[in-house]
């Protein structure tokens, strides 16, 4: 256990400079914006000089870059950064949209797992068969298909032709907030009507977003499973005459361990896919918010949302690494 503790401390130590670096890059993004945002926020051409001055002062725009950086970091940390467009704290606006994105990611994760793992196992067992070729092709098509194309295609099928999904608005939240993620809360309090509404709204975007990852995961599970099947302990079990099904169970246990890392990496892909998916399905999530704030040169929002995306991703990777170290003691080098 001492080793695990050491690993955790070392891993945490690299976490801190990364987060500082992330703030620097997000600041760079804000600092590059050359157009005079103050004038735009104050109301464009007709804005009074006084209003512009006030905004410049409030966002410390006339100060040297390090002062601006400090202002940005501290106000982000305290959650005091005000969105000039909505006059709400930026974090408040983002947090309203956060559950939508998380729920979307949750749905696509479910799809990635329920499609990816079985397909991978089947194609490993039936190696070099038609199914195997199909999975290979599926994986390659998955990484080559633009999210928007698949999204519109499936909207056409399920909404325009069959009318079986809902693609407008945001389903209602359950009465009680426990975790902050509506569908989980609804499940916890047993409000199945709300659960149904959420499923109807989210399953298709979740599938579209997860489509790319499912194929990749299937390929990975296949290779990992094949490797486990050709290892010495499986040879030994074969020699002992253990039935195939039990063999597979043993191999699978070991093959599924590295999947944790792949899922961690896929999470980045999912977050990347959210702006496009949310645009196609008009979901009011963080990705859509990022795009809207860009259209309005709303730099506090751009910075905050980019920063938050990075933090979510970095934290997810941290959790993955820790999980992996707990499951597989060999990685605690």
């Amino acid at each position, binding site marked *: 256990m001492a080793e695990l503790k050491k690993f955790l401390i070392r891993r945490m130590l*690299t976490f801190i*400079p*990364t987060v500082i*670096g*992330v703030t*620097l*890059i*997000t600041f760079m*993004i*804000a600092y*590059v*914006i*050359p*157009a005079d945002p103050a004038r735009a926020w104050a109301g464009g051409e007709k804005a009074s000089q006084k209003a512009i001055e006030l905004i410049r002062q409030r966002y410390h725009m006339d100060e040297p870059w390090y002062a601006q950086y400090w202002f940005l970091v501290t106000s982000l940390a305290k959650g005091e950064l005000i969105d000039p467009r909505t006059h709400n704290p930026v974090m408040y606006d983002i947090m309203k949209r956060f559950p939508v994105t998380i729920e979307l990611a949750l749905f696509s994760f479910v799809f990635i797992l329920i499609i990816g793992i079985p397909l991978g196992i089947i194609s490993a067992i039936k190696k070099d068969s038609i199914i195997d070729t199909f999975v*290979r*092709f599926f994986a*390659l*098509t998955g*990484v*080559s*298909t*633009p*999210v*928007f*194309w698949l999204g*519109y*295609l499936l*909207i*056409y099928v399920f909404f*325009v032709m069959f009318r079986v999904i809902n693609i407008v608005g945001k389903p209602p939240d359950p009465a009680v907030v426990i975790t902050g993620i509506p569908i989980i809360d609804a499940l916890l309090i047993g409000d199945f009507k709300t659960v149904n509404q959420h499923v109807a709204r989210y399953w298709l975007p979740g599938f579209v977003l997860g489509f790319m990852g499912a194929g990749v995961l299937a390929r990975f599970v296949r290779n990992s499973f094949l490797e486990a099947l050709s290892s010495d302990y499986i040879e030994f079990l074969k020699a002992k005459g253990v039935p195939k099904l039990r063999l597979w169970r043993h191999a699978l246990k070991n093959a599924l361990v590295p999947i944790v890392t792949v899922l961690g990496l896929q999470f*980045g*892909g999912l*977050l*990347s*896919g959210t*702006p*496009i998916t949310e*645009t*196609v399905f008009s979901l009011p999530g963080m*990705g859509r918010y*990022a*795009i809207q704030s*860009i*259209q309005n040169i709303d730099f506090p929002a*751009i910075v905050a949302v*980019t920063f938050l*995306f*990075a933090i979510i*991703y*970095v934290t997810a990777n941290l959790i993955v690494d820790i999980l992996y170290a707990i499951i597989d003691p060999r990685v605690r080098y």
Partner: protein
Amino acid sequence: MSGEEYQKSVLDRVSDLFIELLAKLIDRVRPGWYERNRSKVSEWKLMAYALNRSPPGVIGLILVLAFIFVGIFGPIIAPFSYRYFAIYDAPGSDLAQPGTVVVTKDNRTLYFPLGTDHFGRDLLSLLLQGARTSLVISIITIALGVPFGIILGLVAGYYGGKVDELIMRITDIFLAFPALILAIAFAAVLPERIHEVLQSNAWLRDFFLWLFALDQKDAGILSRPLAVILALIIVWWPGYARIVRGSTLSARENLYVEAARAVGLSNRTIMFKHILPNIIGPVLVYITLDFGGIVLMEAGLSFLGLGAVPPIADWGRIVYDGSQYFPRAWWLIFIPGLVVILSALGWNLLGDALRDILDPKTRRSIEFKLKKRRREE
């Protein structure tokens, strides 16, 4: 090991011809090269045989060659200019179905095989023109981003210690962002800066206009696709730095590196002449796969309204504009999307096949198979 003992297919003969031609071309530029590199040329031929024996790889190669061909000649063979707005000549020619024939006011007939967009622009021409945009963006991104990543990775892996630590921390920071999110942010803020540069550099502006095959009138919005290129480079180099560092770390323990050091070669020579050629295989695979990734991400960015704006033709942007008329104008979404899929799929199929081919084991087996067939006869 002369080529005659192999049983070759038609494809093998074609690839032989190409490789011979390439070798002679290099020989013309650097006399004596062919003589010195005979084994390298036959190695290339073997790789080509391996590729010829993988149907997905051949399909991928055909798609990739088609993509490059259309990217180069598309704007020239397009039936209409991307700036020809048929709506002015023939009212009602906007959002025309595929296969529509329209008669203009001055009695010319216009044929739109794939339909038109909301300005009455021919979709086929837009797709052909958009191929250039996609090709130029992906090539420049790879040509600038990959060497940058490779050099940093080599330096980090070769020197180790503090240098390694510093470079890898910076790499980690860039990799901390989900790729598309970072690209979005930079593609959003960079255009105005680039615009300033373009305005003061007429030759640079003309060069890029020529590269993208654009009209002089579009010089004002040229900065937007260029911002996408920069954003993609920013997103793409860290991956290469990380891969190359990893392989350099293991390669520098090899005896040939030690020997090179003992002979007294400079660090730079060792890195670029001795380590790099030995680790370039996997990097080539990544480059091929990433071409597909860049085509896809570029389309995604322009779909989100970043990057090229009309009248510049761009596959993602056509879909975005078409989505305003969804589901009526289905052709504006499904056809450009299909083109994106085929391009990205081509690169991915080729990359997947290359991964097998660059593995020395499969190559040996091909050699063996070819010889065996000969003996059976």
